[in-house]
């Protein structure tokens, strides 16, 4: 029997590879070798496991949410609580792994891109923990809509560079991080925050996150006695999704759903649903699905969620879509914000707007499949960073009209 969960790069089907300047190849080779060695090195694994246990707070719990589930067709809905990790999202899983690797490689400086700021905060945190220098590149649009995380990174001692080129969002932050890395690769490790970019990043970042699904598999089995019927996760680059999906890829009974940012709706053109569009291309080191015009110029993505506002997706997701193992669908800003409010009001859990896309997907699946279905949701991050954006969206700020509409409790 072929297994899907242990496929490694550089290629996932026709996707992946290393479309990078020659200057970076030596660093990618070095990283690939160091990662392969670490992956089978018990001392590395023990050090990472200890950090997970005593620093991140793993294993993260699962929470069943029956009051929320009433709005999802009465299906059984279970959340995997990555929002409870130290620094507030799944991002820390990958960052601690890469920071340990960087230390092994003798690098003294970490750089990162960030969209919502969660990955930047996690990287700044690891840099503080390991006594390393840290520079985080963040699109100017995102520094404005995620101001709280900018302050957090600065408090942690990181330099935050506001990127004012291109669409001034995550894609442009990655461009500037790559430009930095080309010039600084001898002393610097680029902590790429998602399962995109050149090999070995998609494989390595996936492996650092697959603990999410491995824990959840055991936890859901212990709680319900069986595997979940459906798993939902939001997709920007796709790191939390690949993390929760991986342990279930070879369980044919488990249907996997990735929810992309549908923005104002696919028909509006203002979205970030690269898999739904399905156009293959090369961006930032990998061949994958990406939002582009007929000339291969990258098209600007749009999402209320800074963390999903990215015009491409990790190559393994492109492959999983192409072979039909994972379903990918768009969720609009409005659907995500409705799910955001619903979870907050029914369960007292404020999700990240990114994760709210996975919740909105769970509502759709629950309404379709009813009370017999068990749905596992990757709650990839918490919504503290989104309080200002959500308050603006719902008109809850002083001097604005309070709209207390849709959710009937």
């Amino acid at each position: 029997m072929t297994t899907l969960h242990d496929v490694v790069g550089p290629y996932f089907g026709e996707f992946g590879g290393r479309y990078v300047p020659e200057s970076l190849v030596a660093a990618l080779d070095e990283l690939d070798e160091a990662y392969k060695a670490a992956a089978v090195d018990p001392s590395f694994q023990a050090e990472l496991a200890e950090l997970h246990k005593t620093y991140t707070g793993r294993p993260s719990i699962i929470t069943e949410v029956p009051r929320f589930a009433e709005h999802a067709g009465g299906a059984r809905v279970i959340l995997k609580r990555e929002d409870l990790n130290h620094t507030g999202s799944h991002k820390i899983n990958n960052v601690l792994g890469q920071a340990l690797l960087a230390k092994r490689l003798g690098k003294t400086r970490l750089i990162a891109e960030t969209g919502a700021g969660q990955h930047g905060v996690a990287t700044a945190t690891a840099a503080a923990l390991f006594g390393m220098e840290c520079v985080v590149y963040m699109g100017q649009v995102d520094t404005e809509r995620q101001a709280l995380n900018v302050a957090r990174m600065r408090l942690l001692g990181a330099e935050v560079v506001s990127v004012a080129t291109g669409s001034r969002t995550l894609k442009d932050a990655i461009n500037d991080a790559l430009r930095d890395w080309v010039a600084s690769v001898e002393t610097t490790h680029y902590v790429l925050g998602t399962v995109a970019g050149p090999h070995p990043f998609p494989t390595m970042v996936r492996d650092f996150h697959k603990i999410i699904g491995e824990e959840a598999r055991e936890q859901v089995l212990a709680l319900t006695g069986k595997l979940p019927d459906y798993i939902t996760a939001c997709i920007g680059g796709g790191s939390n999704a690949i993390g929760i999906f991986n342990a279930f890829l070879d369980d044919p009974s488990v249907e996997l759903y990735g929810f992309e940012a549908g923005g104002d709706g696919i028909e509006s053109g203002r979205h970030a649903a690269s898999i739904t569009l399905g156009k293959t291309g090369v961006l930032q080191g990998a061949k994958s699905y990406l939002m582009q015009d007929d000339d291969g110029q990258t098209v600007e993505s749009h999402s209320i969620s800074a963390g999903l506002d990215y015009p491409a997706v990790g190559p393994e997701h492109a492959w999983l879509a192409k072979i039909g193992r994972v379903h990918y669908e768009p969720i609009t800003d409005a659907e995500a914000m409705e799910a955001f409010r619903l979870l907050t009001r029914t369960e007292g859990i404020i999700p990240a707007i990114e994760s709210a896309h996975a919740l909105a997907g769970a509502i759709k699946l629950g309404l379709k499949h009813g009370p017999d279905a068990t749905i596992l949701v990757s709650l990839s991050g918490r919504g503290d960073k989104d309080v200002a954006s959500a308050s603006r969206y719902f008109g809850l700020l002083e001097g604005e009209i309070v709209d207390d509409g849709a959710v009937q409790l």
Partner: protein
Amino acid sequence: MIDSTTSKVGAAIHARKDAGSGAVIGYLPLGFPDIQTSIDAAVTLANNGVDVLELGLPYSDPVMDGPVIQAATQRALAEGYRVRDTFPAVREIVSQVKTPVLVMTYWNPVAQFGAQRFADELSAAGGAGLITPDLIPDEGSEWMAAATAADLDRVFLAAPSSSETRLKQAVEASRGFVYTVSTMGITGARSDVDSAAATLVARLRAVGVDNACVGLGISTAQQVREVLAYADGAIIGSAFVRALAEGGLERLAAVSSDLASGSRVS
């Protein structure tokens, strides 16, 4: 394999080497500040001492480019530059000057256009080949096949960090010259051209390079002179872009003559 007998670029570089110096390779983006001016600017370089032209195809995500070239190519895109505009522009330039014309492009625009179709149209327009900054030979089989079929040059990059194996691979995959990256970094003028460049050229010679041309950071006649003391060509980009942006064709002609004087045997 390097085959200078069919490479117009290789022949141009060899002509300058035979004269006791080396070639000056000039970069400017297509469509900046508009298509006609970019054509005139390329002709201006050719008429003022530049031996090989390198025309940048504007791209939305140019990760090897510094602020000067980024600003110019983003402006070209904002003005509506299309990939298909490349071929008539090249045709117009080669109708006016004998200088060979390479196109510098990131990979995705070529991939979307179709590698073979791009190669055929570029060849038909009189273009000499491509410089591909984000395509390493490992990922380049489609382009290699298309370029071979269309008899075009393919210029891959070598970096100070490249292993001997990779340098050998770059030499074998390239035709025309090997783009020798002078420093670990992106495009833009620098006060000193890194001493790493001389070391890298020597390492390329050791694995049998025909033409090693050095780029990144060259912006003065003195730097051109220094580089040509050990390399086969000196590539100048940001300094020309800045001259065009700040002083138009007149300033570009003056800067071009000045920098090219660094390649004249005294």
